[in-house]
């Protein structure tokens, strides 16, 4: 087994490597770094909202800049690269190939991310992560908004390059004796995600060019004074970014399919239903983009089509949940940290999904639109389900990457704080929305209900923040001084653990 950190190597050897495990390690380390940076911004936002009026952030514009970079950072520099990192680490091993199909392209795709991240962080744009016109084209100050556009563009190119590499590695470099329907479900999740990226991302790439030329004043695609339509941008944006929601979610689901059977000591209940649900989600993800736009004056028929399209994702998502429950049923579940995070993610997956069903129904969408309900809903999905799932898998991979064990007690404390904190902050935000608090606001009405709920949300946010600081300290300390892991069975499951390379057929060149 390849142990990257255990072997003492100069750092430049990892930085300039094109080997898939090195690139995977770089993706994972950088994405966790960005998680902490984006998390620090979230703490600033929540501290500001502790009480009505200005607290620690000087102006509303600065508040907007902070949540813009927070959102962009968390989506494109934490969740997406982490999925790519784990994919890089495991996909060649799972499909029995010695590396990714194009190792140099793989390294190029990774090294675009720090460049894009620098542009986004240096620019500190105030457009919101959606960059809706007309503000983004007519009023948003440059060069901040321009840097955001170019940063997003580079991240899109990086995603497409990575996705092409994954698709070719899985479909063309897979061992000839390994049928697709025998691949681990995590490989399926990366395959479906990559295909979605290839289909969805070019639309946003085109929209960004149109946005930029509009900003330069040489076109008016989204400018009504020049015959354009700002709503057209929203269609282009959400055609990419509703599927992107599934692009964030599906790798996390694939990771849960790795941990849940392993820690339940049982095979997956139904491999076929897992594959079916992945494929269905991959298709249905493209049939629901305009549910983000019910309030823009669409016709009843259009809204009905997109409402039904969105609800069609419910059975596919429920198939995953049922599959996990049926897998655990009758097993002997060991609640090590990766499994705790997995079961926490499943519990919050249902809660956030139920909130999504409410948003989907067009009459109800008018109650919740642009309110804190929406913030609570998507954070519950992205932080509660996706990030907890990814974090659990980080603990699962830790012995493989470092050859050492993390501190289990502190990992469990991390889980407990993160799980409770996520519920405090994001369920409360749903209620804030129902009490009429709009999203993206710097200040709010000084009513006792809003103040107390904002304070509960802030306490929850800091609890989550502290839990992730604990994780980073635990991992840094354990990577250097942790107990050497038993590589046959690091979680004391009583069975062979990292068996990917030992499976038949053998790795081929």
């Amino acid at each position, binding site marked *: 087994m390849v142990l990257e950190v255990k072997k003492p190597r100069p750092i430049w050897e990892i930085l300039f490597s094109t080997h898939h495990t090195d690139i995977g390690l770089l993706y994972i380390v950088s994405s966790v770094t960005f998680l902490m940076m984006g998390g620090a911004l979230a703490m600033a936002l929540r501290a500001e909202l502790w009480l009505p009026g200005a607290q620690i952030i000087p102006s509303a514009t600065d508040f907007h800049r902070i949540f813009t970079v927070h959102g962009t950072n968390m989506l494109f520099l934490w969740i997406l690269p982490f999925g790519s990192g784990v994919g890089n680490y495991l996909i060649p091993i799972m499909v029995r190939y010695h590396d990714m199909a194009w190792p140099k392209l793989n390294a190029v795709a990774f090294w675009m991310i720090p460049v894009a991240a620098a542009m986004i962080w240096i620019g500190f744009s105030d457009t919101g992560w959606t960059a809706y016109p007309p503000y983004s084209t007519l009023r948003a100050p440059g060069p901040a908004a321009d840097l955001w556009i170019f940063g997003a563009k580079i991240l899109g190119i990086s995603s497409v390059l990575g996705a092409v590499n994954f698709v070719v590695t899985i479909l063309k470099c897979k061992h000839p004796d390994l049928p697709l329907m025998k691949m681990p479900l995590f490989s399926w999740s990366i395959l479906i995600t990559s295909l979605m990226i290839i289909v969805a991302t070019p639309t946003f790439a085109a929209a960004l060019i149109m946005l930029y030329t509009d900003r330069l004043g040489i076109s008016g695609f989204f400018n009504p004074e020049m015959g354009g339509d700002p709503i057209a941008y929203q269609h282009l944006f959400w055609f990419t970014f509703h599927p992107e929601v599934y692009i964030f979610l599906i790798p996390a689901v694939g990771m849960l399919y790795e941990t849940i059977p392993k820690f*339940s000591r049982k095979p997956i*209940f*139904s491999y*076929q*239903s897992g594959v*079916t649900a992945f494929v269905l989600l991959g298709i249905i993800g493209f049939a629901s983009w305009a549910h983000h736009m019910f309030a823009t004056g669409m016709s*009843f028929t259009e809204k009905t089509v997109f409402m039904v399209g969105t609800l069609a994702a*419910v*059975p596919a998502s*429920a*198939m995953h*949940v*049922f*599959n996990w*429950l*049926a897998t*655990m*049923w*009758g*097993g*002997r*579940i*060991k*609640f090590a940290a990766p499994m705790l995070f997995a*079961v926490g993610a*499943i*519990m919050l997956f*249902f*809660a956030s999904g*139920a909130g999504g*069903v*409410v948003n989907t*129904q067009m*009459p*109800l969408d*008018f*109650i919740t639109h642009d309110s804190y309900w929406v913030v609570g809903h998507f954070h519950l999905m992205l932080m509660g389900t996706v990030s907890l799932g990814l974090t659990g898998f980080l603990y699962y991979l830790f012995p493989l990457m470092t050859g050492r064990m993390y501190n289990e007690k502190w990992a469990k404390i991390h889980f407990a704080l993160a799980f409770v904190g996520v519920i405090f902050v994001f369920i409360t935000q749903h209620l804030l929305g129902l009490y009429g608090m709009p999203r993206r606001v710097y200040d709010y009405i000084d009513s006792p209900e809003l103040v107390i709920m904002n304070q509960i949300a802030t306490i929850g946010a800091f609890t989550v923040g502290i839990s992730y600081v604990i994780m980073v300290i635990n991992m840094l300390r354990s990577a250097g001084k942790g107990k050497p892991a038993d590589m046959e069975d690091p979680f004391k499951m009583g069975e062979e653990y990292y068996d990917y390379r030992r499976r038949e057929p053998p790795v081929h060149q």
Partner: protein
Amino acid sequence: MVSRLAISWTMIGCLSVIGYLSIFGSNFIDVFAQEAEDIIVRRVAIWDLFYQGMVAAFVVGSLVQGTLIYIYWRFRESNPKNRPRTEKKEA
């Protein structure tokens, strides 16, 4: 023997039907009534729909979350009822 895929679909179908009937079997169409003679207060009708949706979500949610909690409790490795067969024989 019924395949596991079929079992999954059946379970999910049943839950979907419960949710669908709870929400759409009510006054969903009223909310969008277009005819002049329909006198409804849309705000009231929408909140009514919201509460019905919440009831459906909490019913299905309590079923799923309850099952999850039972599974975690019953099939944890520390549960005395859940020892491996070899250990039970030795005992």
